[in-house]
């Protein structure tokens, strides 16, 4: 294939990726967008095969690799529970990071195949681009592995704080720069692998001090990194699809991190420096002051909601943990059948990933036009009879609004306390991820429904049938 035409096709595949993201501006166009993305990928692969015309053996290897990897991917994609999305995304990122390292290594050992010079005489510019790509790729790899382990609960979410960790990281960073310079000067494979090793270590060290609940920000940030790594390799390979995609993914990750930090009213730097949040602390109301809590049963809740005119449901991380979304939808159906108006209110950082709650509700067949973002629904709580808060905590904590000394002060919250009655489904009076007591539990209009989110909701559904 003509190299010009191939470049043109790579451009087309880059454009298709842009259209894929553009499709996500609305659920109705999103499926079409995803198909554009697939076509773009198919074009990029076909173009590369047509351009490089591998030997028969090479072609066999390629098919083998695609089939093995593809089937694993397809099976995972089909089997994975929707609640496990955050982990899955982290795991996928780690693969991209490692693949970037491998591609760079291949370019190092066979520079001729990539058109960047010959062994021992690789172009300086290509070396710089490559080593950037490999360093970012390696950091993405180990960082994502740690994020995966923390999100999947295979590793404690507690921040692991090495003494003098900032110093260590700065020293490693400086060493990395020195090694890259050395690589450009010496073209040594040994130095290349040193860079890989150092970056792998840096990836671990950067992520372990960050608390488990900050992992969503970390995952987005690593998403952004993997984009920049792809772009760097795109420069080395002179590949337009890779450059465009890298820029898209890089911006996407950066913007999502920004949105999350804003939703928590925290600075990106403070998240990245780590040390915040850990195990969900089950502190209870043990701060000396005796406070009364009104506890209710499933029957109480059923009665209250069946007699309401408007119920707003506020899901949070606990709903995901309990897999309560299907029971919740059943409950909403019952209410709607009884003439009650039902809406869902989603906080931008509810759950453990942006959009997490939306996906779970969609899985339970909740129509997306009943689901509203914070700014669109917050004023409606004042007119609601019941706010049904299920497994959410921090995103409803009024101290973010009223208490200047609170660590989450300034974080936008859902004004569930403005509803006539506020029902709280959770297992205890424990705090959420931010480890802060929720004063709402002790308010007059609040009724606690202590128990597992799924069980409690199912009981309410049963009670509604009486």
């Amino acid at each position: 294939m003509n190299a010009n035409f191939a470049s043109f096709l790579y451009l087309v595949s880059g454009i298709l990726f842009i259209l894929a993201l553009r499709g996500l501006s609305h659920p109705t166009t999103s499926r079409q967008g995803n198909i554009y993305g697939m076509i773009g990928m198919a074009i990029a692969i076909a173009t590369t095969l047509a351009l490089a015309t591998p030997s028969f053996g090479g072609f066999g290897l390629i098919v083998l690799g695609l089939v093995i990897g593809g089937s694993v991917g397809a099976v995972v994609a089909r089997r994975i529970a929707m609640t496990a999305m955050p982990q899955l995304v982290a795991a996928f990122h780690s693969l991209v990071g490692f693949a970037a390292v491998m591609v760079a290594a291949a370019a190092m050992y066979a520079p001729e195949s990539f058109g960047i010079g010959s062994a021992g005489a690789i172009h300086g510019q290509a070396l710089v681009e490559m080593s950037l790509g490999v360093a970012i790729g390696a950091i993405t790899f180990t960082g994502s592995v740690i994020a995966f382990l923390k999100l999947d609960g295979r590793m404690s979410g507690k921040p692991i704080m090495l003494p003098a960790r900032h110093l260590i990281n700065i020293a490693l960073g400086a060493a990395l720069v020195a090694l890259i310079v050395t690589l450009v000067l010496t073209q040594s494979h040994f130095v290349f692998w040193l860079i890989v090793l150092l970056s792998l270590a840096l990836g671990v060290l950067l992520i372990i001090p960050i608390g488990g609940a900050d992992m969503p920000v970390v995952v987005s940030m690593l998403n952004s990194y993997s984009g920049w790594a792809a772009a760097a390799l795109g420069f080395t390979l002179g590949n337009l699809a890779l450059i465009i995609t890298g820029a898209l993914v890089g911006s996407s990750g950066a913007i999502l991190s920004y949105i999350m930090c804003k939703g928590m009213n925290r600075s990106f730097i403070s998240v990245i420096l780590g040390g915040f949040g850990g195990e969900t602390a089950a502190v209870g109301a043990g701060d000396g002051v005796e406070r009364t809590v009104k506890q209710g049963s499933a029957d109480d809740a059923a009665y209250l909601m069946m007699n309401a005119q408007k119920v707003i449901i506020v899901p949070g991380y606990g709903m995901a943990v309990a897999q309560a979304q299907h029971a919740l939808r059943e409950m909403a159906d019952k209410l709607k059948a009884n003439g009650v108006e039902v809406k869902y209110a989603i906080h931008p950082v509810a759950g453990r990933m942006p959009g997490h709650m939306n996906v779970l509700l969609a899985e339970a067949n909740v129509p997306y036009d009943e689901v509203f973002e914070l700014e669109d629904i917050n004023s409606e709580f004042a007119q609601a009879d019941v706010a049904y808060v299920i497994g959410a905590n921090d995103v409803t904590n009024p101290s973010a609004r009223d208490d200047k000394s609170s660590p989450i002060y300034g974080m936008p919250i859902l004004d569930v306390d403005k509803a006539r009655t506020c029902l709280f489904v959770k297992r205890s009076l424990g705090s959420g991820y931010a480890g802060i007591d929720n004063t709402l539990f002790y308010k007059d209009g609040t009724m606690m429904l202590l128990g597992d989110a799924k069980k409690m909701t199912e009981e309410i559904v049963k009670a509604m049938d009486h």
Partner: protein
Amino acid sequence: MEKTSLEQALDQLDQAVAAVRLGVQDLVHGQGAAEAAGAAAHAVSGGAIDPFVFRFAIFVLAIFVGYYVVWSVTPALHTPLMAVTNAISSVIVVGALLAVGIAASGLATGFGFVALMLVSVNIFGGFLVTQRMLAMYKKKEK
């Protein structure tokens, strides 16, 4: 090699510019002067430009596009957004294909094969899981 081609271009430009000066001062707009001007303009109009500059331009513009396109994604679809960016970043597969397909070193082929396998997981897994998620988003039935 970058440096030399760059220096070459610079030299050519210098020579060409000198030639143009002569040509213009010459006042006789003969063929010779015109050709010299042509050489200068060749540099002017990009014939001698390093592809890096173009790639950089494409990169910068793509960041602008990414900025706008991502901000226009509805928050309800932020999880599918993460999944699909994951899938498309696997376009790094082109590097893996080159390595497996035409590398002249056994090691490189091996590295490429590992990359290819990993990235295939991502391609298929990423797009399919996105597909699965997006299929769940439904409007209210009327």
